């Protein structure tokens, strides 16, 4: 049997494939359904938060920041409650990262404010002396792409049944409304105005009033939501 395999390239290839494929079959497939269940109270991202998440991805914040608090006292003391599986149910893709050049961000919304973030992203050393993080000034000028964020929200709603426009906790109210693009955009602008005012930067407030959401405002809305 073996010598036959060694001389038949086709069946050899099939053999190799079987050997390498079954680890995935046993390890990954059986847990799929179980892993995707959200924890109680988990909500999908609103349009502005999702736009901010896209900014986070575009500038590869995950190259230096993790979003995974491990169950050790030294980590829970520093960052808060350790991360739970169901908290990530609406994260597509996951953003755990693999390197902490900077601190973990999974619960950064608990202990940082909008104006802290704005100052920090404009000039990191102004709030954290000695920081090696670069400034992200282009985020203050670039306009967040709400349309692509809406396209993503609508896609996950349609394809993966992410519960937008649904009553999740049974109180008779829709928890995370999406609606049409115009409705969603208006809601995002209102939310953005609140965040922009919290940053205490007039240029950001002015931009939002003109109907343009700066990327930094969307990003801060996303970071504030990480709790």
């Amino acid at each position: 049997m073996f010598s036959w395999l060694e001389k038949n390239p086709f069946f050899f290839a099939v053999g190799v494939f079987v050997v390498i494929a079954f680890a995935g079959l046993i390890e990954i497939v059986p847990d799929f359904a179980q892993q995707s269940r959200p924890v109680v109270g988990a909500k999908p991202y609103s349009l502005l938060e999702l736009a901010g998440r896209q900014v986070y991805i575009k500038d590869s914040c995950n190259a230096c920041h993790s979003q995974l608090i491990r169950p050790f006292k030294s980590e829970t003391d520093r960052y808060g409650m350790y991360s739970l599986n169901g908290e990530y149910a609406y994260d597509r893709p996951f953003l755990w990262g693999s390197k902490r050049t900077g601190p973990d961000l999974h619960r950064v919304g608990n202990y940082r404010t909008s104006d802290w973030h704005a100052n920090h992203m404009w000039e990191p050393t102004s709030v954290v002396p000695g920081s090696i993080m670069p400034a992200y000034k282009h985020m203050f000028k670039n306009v967040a792409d709400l349309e692509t964020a809406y396209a993503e929200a609508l896609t996950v709603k349609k394809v993966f049944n992410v519960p937008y426009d649904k009553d999740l906790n049974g109180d008779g109210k829709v928890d995370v409304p999406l609606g049409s693009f115009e409705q969603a955009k208006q809601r995002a602008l209102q939310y953005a105005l609140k965040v922009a005012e919290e940053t205490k930067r007039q240029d950001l407030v002015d931009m939002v009033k003109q109907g343009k959401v700066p990327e930094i405002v969307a990003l801060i809305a996303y970071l504030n939501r990480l709790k």
Partner: protein
Amino acid sequence: MDIRLIQGVAYLGLIIFLTFILYGYIIHLYRSEKKGKRNYEKYGKMALDDELTSPPVEPLEEHTKESR
């Protein structure tokens, strides 16, 4: 039945099965050499003597005919 149980049984079965295959393979390698059916070490020459004009270690039938 519980998926965990199926997974566990399947996993154990596979490990035993593959251990058999692995040992079978080792025995196969040495036995076929001992019986003189094959000499695996001669395949090492394929890297050393690899000119287009040098004779293959184990020629494919049809090619041998046409090239001779």
